[in-house]
C-alpha cells in the first residue's frame, strides 16, 4: 500500500477493483464505511456482485482479465476532457518528458519486439536526453513526442463503446464510474484504489496495477490523504516475507540478486546502482552499495572484509528465472533432489496443481514444516496414488503457531507489529526459527568436519550468534535486521560506538562499518528499543498516522510519496487533510515523516518527490517494463473471444504454454476467489470446527441461466473440467454471478473458491487443478483469475 488502512477514511471516492474487502479484508471495510459516512462514493468493479458491491454506490461488472481496457477507457475520458490535475502532472510526473523518436506502437506491438523469444528489446522506450544526460521536457505538454501526447494518443482508441464491448460492462454503469472517479482530479479531492489478486493474477497483472497507478498520477491522487494505490495483501506477513526477500530475484530490502555477470561487488554495484545527472533527483537507490555491504556484513560478520568484497563471492549468482512456475516446471522434470516447504501447500495453492503433485513424486526428500498435516505433506498417499511407487523420504515438522513465539509481522500498510509468545507450542512443536537454527548448527558442524566438502565457506563463515537458548533469540535477530555499528565511527557529525544500533538507513555505510540485515527495516530497532513493540495511541494531527503505534517502513513514514501531497510551496493540495505541510518559520515539514526532508520544490537545493526513481518523477511512461511502456489490452491466455483492440490476442511478452484450450471445448470463463471463512490453501481454516461449520463444502458459483441450461439446482454435484484437469463441487446458483455480453455474444462465468483439498477436517475439490501455469510477463504470477472451463451435472464418480 502507498497509504495505510486507516487512511482510507479520508477518501472522497473509493474504487475496489480486483478486490473484495468486505469479505476478504473485513475489518478494513470499517474505513470504507467511515469514508462513506463522510460522503465518499464507493465503486465496486468485479465480475461477481460481491458483498463489497452490495455496499457500493456504483457497481460495474467486468469480465475477468479486462482491467486495462476498463482503466484505459477511464484515462481516455480524463485526457480528452482535460480532467487531469495539471500542476501535479507537469511537476511531479514524467508527462512533460520527451520520448525517443524510435519508440512506436503498432497494432498491439511496441517497438523492439522479438517474436521468436517473446521478448522486447527496450532501447527505443527511452527519453530524449539533453547535453547533460537529463530528459528533455516540454512543460506545455504540446510536443507530439511528450509522454503526455503519446499517452493521449495511445488511449484514444479506448472509447467507452469499445471498452464495454470488451469488458461486458453496461455502458451507463461505466460512465457513472468514470464521471465519479474523474471528479477527483482537482486539488482538494481524493480517490483511492483498493486492489488485490483479481488485479495481479493475470499474464499482464503488473500492467493492470500500472494502469491504476497512471490514472492516479493523472488525477494527482498519489501521496495524498485518501489516495494512492493500495494492495490488499492476503496473508498476515506476506508484505514482510517480500521485504525479507524469500524470492529468487531479490535480497532483503529489494536489493537485486546478483546475476552471473556481476563478477565482483564493484561490478554488481555498477550494474544495479542507478545513475542520475539531475541535481534535483534524490535517486535513493544510489545508496545501493551501502545497503549491499551492510547486508553482506550481517550475513558473514567478521569474515566479510573490504579486501574480500565482503564475501560477495559466497552469494549464489543467478543466470535465469527461478520463479514459482519455473521452479515447479523443474520439479516436474526431476530437477530437484530435495524440497523444503515452510508453511506452504503448493498442491492446493499452486497453478495446475495436479502437475505439481506429480512433480513431488520425483523427489529424494521433502521437508514440510507446518501446524497441520497438509495435502502437500501427504502427497505420497493422495487419492489415486500407490505409496509403494513413491521413493521420497518425507519429514513433517510440527511448527509453533503465531501465539506460541515472539516476532514481528508487517501488514499491508507496512506496519511492522510485534507478536508475543503467550504459551508454549503443543507437544513437541517448535518455531520455524528453531528449525532453521538447528539446520545451520548441524551443517556448520558437518562442513567443518568434512575435509572434502564442496565450497564450505558460506556455511562455516556464516555469522550465526543468536544466544545460547533452546531457540535463537528473536530479539537479537531483530537487532541484526535493523543493523549495528561494527566499530567506533563518526558519521554526519555523530559518533557511534561499536555494537550500537544504527539509528536509520541514512547512516549505513559501504565500508563495512555497519551491518543491516534489511536496510528498509533500519530504524525499527534503535538504541531507544524495539520500535515494533510500541503501543502509543495518540493521534495529535487527527489524521490517523499513529506514529507511536508499532513502526512502519521506511523510517516510520505512514504515507509513501507524501512530498507529492503538497504544491510547489509546500502547501497541502488539501489543507483540511494534510499529510505533510511546510512550516516557513521553522523551515521544517510537519505531519507525517516526509519523503526526504528537503525544502519545497520552489526552493533551491530541493529534490523531486518520487525519490526511488532515478529521474525523480512518477512514471506515466515506464521504459523498464517487460511488456511495454504503456499498459495495453490483451486477452487472457484462455479467452472466449478475439482481442477487439488489436490483432495481438495475448500478451506478446508471454510465451504461450502447452496446456491451453484453443478449441472452444471449454465455453465458460472460470475464475477463483476467497471467502471470509476460509483462507488461502485452507490448512489454517479447514481444520477449525467453527469455520468448517460455516463453510463446509467446495462449491462453484453459477448463474441462474447456466443452471437452467444444464438442468442444475442449488446444491447439485457438478464436475468442472479444463485442459488441466477436473474437479467436483456443489453448484451454488446465485444472482450474484451473471453472464456478460462480450463482443456481441453472451459469455457465462463460473466462480469458485480455491481453499479446498483432499485432506483436513473439511475436504473438497481443489480449484487450482483447473488453473493455468502461465505467468505475468514481469513477475510470473500465475494467471489464476481467468481460464476456460466446462461444467456438467454429476460428480466425478457418478
Amino acid at each position, binding site marked *: 500500500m502507498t497509504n495505510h488502512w*486507516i487512511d482510507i477514511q479520508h477518501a472522497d471516492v473509493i474504487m475496489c477493483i480486483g478486490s473484495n474487502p468486505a469479505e476478504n479484508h473485513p*475489518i478494513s471495510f*470499517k474505513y470504507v464505511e467511515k469514508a462513506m459516512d463522510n460522503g465518499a462514493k464507493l465503486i465496486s468493479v468485479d465480475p461477481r456482485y460481491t458483498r463489497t458491491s452490495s455496499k457500493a454506490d456504483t457497481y460495474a461488472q467486468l469480465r475477468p482479465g479486462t482491467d486495462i481496457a476498463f482503466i484505459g477507457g477511464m484515462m481516455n475520458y480524463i485526457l480528452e476532457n482535460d480532467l487531469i490535475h495539471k500542476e501535479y502532472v507537469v511537476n511531479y510526473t514524467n508527462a512533460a518528458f520527451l520520448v525517443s523518436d524510435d519508440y512506436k506502437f503498432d497494432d498491439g506491438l511496441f517497438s523492439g519486439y522479438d517474436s521468436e523469444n517473446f521478448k522486447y528489446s527496450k532501447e527505443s522506450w527511452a527519453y530524449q536526453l539533453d547535453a547533460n544526460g537529463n530528459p528533455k521536457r516540454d512543460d506545455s505538454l504540446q510536443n507530439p513526442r511528450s509522454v503526455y501526447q503519446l499517452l493521449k494518443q495511445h488511449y484514444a482508441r479506448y472509447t467507452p463503446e469499445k471498452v464495454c464491448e470488451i469488458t461486458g460492462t453496461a455502458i451507463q454503469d461505466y460512465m457513472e464510474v468514470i464521471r465519479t472517479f474523474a471528479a477527483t482530479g482537482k486539488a482538494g479531492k481524493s480517490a483511492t484504489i483498493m486492489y488485490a489478486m483479481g488485479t495481479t493474477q493475470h499474464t499482464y497483472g503488473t500492467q493492470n496495477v500500472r494502469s491504476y497507478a497512471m490514472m492516479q498520477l493523472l488525477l494527482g491522487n498519489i501521496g495524498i490523504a485518501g489516495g494512492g494505490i493500495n494492495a490488499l495483501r*492476503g*496473508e*498476515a*506477513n*506476506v508484505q514482510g*516475507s517480500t521485504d*525479507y*526477500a*524469500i524470492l*529468487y530475484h531479490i535480497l*532483503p530490502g529489494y536489493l537485486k540478486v546478483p546475476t552471473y*555477470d556481476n563478477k565482483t561487488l564493484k561490478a554488481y554495484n555498477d550494474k544495479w546502482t542507478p545513475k542520475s545527472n539531475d541535481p534535483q533527483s534524490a535517486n535513493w537507490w544510489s545508496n545501493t552499495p551501502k545497503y549491499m555491504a551492510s547486508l553482506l556484513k550481517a*550475513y558473514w560478520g567478521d569474515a566479510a572484509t573490504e579486501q574480500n568484497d565482503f564475501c560477495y563471492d*559466497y552469494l*549464489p549468482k543467478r*543466470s535465469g528465472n527461478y520463479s514459482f512456475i519455473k*521452479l515447479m516446471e*523443474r520439479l516436474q522434470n526431476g530437477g530437484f*533432489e*530435495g*524440497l*523444503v*516447504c*515452510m508453511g*506452504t501447500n503448493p498442491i492446493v495453492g*499452486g497453478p495446475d496443481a495436479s502437475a505439481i503433485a506429480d512433480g513431488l513424486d520425483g523427489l529424494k526428500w521433502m521437508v514440510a514444516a507446518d501446524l497441520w498435516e497438509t495435502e502437500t505433506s501427504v502427497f505420497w498417499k493422495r487419492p489415486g496414488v500407490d505409496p509403494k511407487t513413491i521413493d521420497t*523420504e518425507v*519429514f513433517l515438522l510440527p*511448527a509453533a*503457531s*503465531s501465539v506460541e513465539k515472539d516476532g514481528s*509481522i508487517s*501488514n499491508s500498510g507496512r506496519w511492522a*507489529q510485534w*507478536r*508475543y509468545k*503467550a504459551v508454549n507450542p503443543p507437544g513437541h*512443536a*517448535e518455531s520455524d*526459527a528453531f528449525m*532453521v537454527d*538447528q*539446520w545451520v548448527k*548441524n*551443517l556448520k558442524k558437518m562442513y567443518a568436519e568434512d575435509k572434502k566438502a564442496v*565450497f564450505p565457506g558460506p*556455511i562455516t563463515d*556464516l555469522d550465526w550468534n543468536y544466544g545460547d537458548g533452546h531457540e535463537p533469540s528473536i530479539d537479537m*535477530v531483530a537487532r541484526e535486521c535493523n543493523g549495528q555499528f561494527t566499530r567506533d565511527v563518526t558519521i554526519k557529525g555523530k559518533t557511534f560506538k561499536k555494537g550500537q544500533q544504527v539509528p536509520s538507513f541514512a547512516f549505513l555505510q559501504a565500508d563495512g562499518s555497519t551491518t543491516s540485515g534489511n536496510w528498509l527495516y533500519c530504524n525499527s530497532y534503535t538504541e531507544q528499543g524495539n520500535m515494533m513493540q510500541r503501543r*502509543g495511541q*495518540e493521534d495529535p494531527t487527527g489524521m490517523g498516522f499513529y506514529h507511536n503505534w508499532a513502526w512502519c517502513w521506511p523510517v516510520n513514514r505512514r504515507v509513501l510519496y507524501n512530498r507529492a501531497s503538497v504544491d510547489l510551496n509546500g502547501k497541502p493540495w488539501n489543507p483540511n487533510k*494534510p499529510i505533510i505541510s511546510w512550516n516557513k518559520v521553522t523551515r521544517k515539514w510537519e505531519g507525517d515523516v516526509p519523503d526526504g526532508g528537503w525544502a519545497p520544490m520552489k526552493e533551491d537545493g530541493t529534490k523531486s518527490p518520487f525519490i526511488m526513481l532515478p529521474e525523480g518523477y512518477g512514471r506515466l511512461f515506464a521504459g523498464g517494463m517487460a511488456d511495454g511502456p504503456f499498459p495495453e489490452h490483451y486477452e487472457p491466455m484462455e479467452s472466449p473471444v478475439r482481442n477487439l483492440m488489436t490483432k495481438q490476442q495475448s500478451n506478446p511478452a508471454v510465451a504461450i504454454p502447452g496446456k491451453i484450450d484453443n478449441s472452444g471445448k471449454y465455453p465458460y470463463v472460470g475464475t477463483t476467489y476467497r471467502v471470509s471463512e476460509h483462507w*488461502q490453501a485452507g490448512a489454517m481454516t479447514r481444520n*477449525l470446527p467453527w*469455520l468448517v461449520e460455516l463453510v463446509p463444502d467446495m462449491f462453484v458459483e453459477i448463474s441462474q441461466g447456466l443452471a437452467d441450461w444444464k438442468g442444475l439446482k442449488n446444491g447439485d454435484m457438478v464436475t468442472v473440467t479444463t485442459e488441466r484437469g477436473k474437479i467436483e463441487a456443489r453448484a451454488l446458483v446465485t444472482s450474484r454471478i451473471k453472464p456478460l455480453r462480450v463482443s456481441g455474444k453472451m459469455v457465462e462465468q463460473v466462480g469458485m473458491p480455491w481453499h479446498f483439498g483432499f485432506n483436513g477436517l473439511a475436504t473438497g475439490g481443489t480449484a487450482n487443478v483447473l488453473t493455468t501455469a502461465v505467468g505475468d510477463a514481469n513477475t510470473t*504470477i*500465475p494467471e489464476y483469475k481467468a481460464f476456460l472451463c466446462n461444467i456438467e451435472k454429476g460428480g466425478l464418480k457418478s
Partner: protein
Amino acid sequence: MSVSRRNFLKGGGLAAGSIALTGKPSQASVDKPALRTKGLQTSTTVCPYCAVGCGMIVHRKDGKIVNIEGDPEHPINQGSLCSKGSALFQVANNERRLTKVQYRAPKSDKWEEKSWDWAMERIAKRMKDTRDRNFVKQEKINGEMYTVNRNEGMAMIGAAALDNEECYLLGKFARAMGVSYLEHQARI
C-alpha cells in the same frame, strides 16, 4: 489545523497515552471486562490471517490459552475481528495440530514418530549431500566461464506464515546454502 473530535475526547489523556515503549507484554494495558477474564494473564498479538493486521489480546491461565479477542486499543481494528480472526482460539487449541516429528520412509504408506535430534541431523545430512552433489561452481554462458556458486539440487518455498525475523534467518540460511530456487506465496 483544528482539533478533531477524536483528539478533543481524548483530551488530557494524550501525555499518559504516549508511553513510547512497553517493553514487556504484560505492560500492554488492555480493557479487561472484569468477570470473564479476572485473574488471567494477558499478552497482545496480531492476527495471522489477512494483512489488515488486527490486534488481539490473548488470555491465558496455567499455560493454556483460554480466550482470544480483539484488542480495543488497537488503532486499526479497535477491538473488532472478522470470522477468521475470531477463530484463532481454535488454532491454539486444536486436536488436529501436529505435536510430534513425523517421518515417512521411501515406499512406506504411513508416518513414524521421530525425535527432533534424529530428524534435524538427518535433514541436515540430506541437505549437505544434495548441495555437494549438485553444486554448480562455474557455468559457461555464451562461451565465457562465470562463477555462479549455486546449489541446484534443492528448492525452498514458503515464508508468508513466518515472522519477519524468521524470514530473515531462512533467507540467510538459503543463500549460504547456495539455494537460488527460493520462492513463496508472494509470487502466487
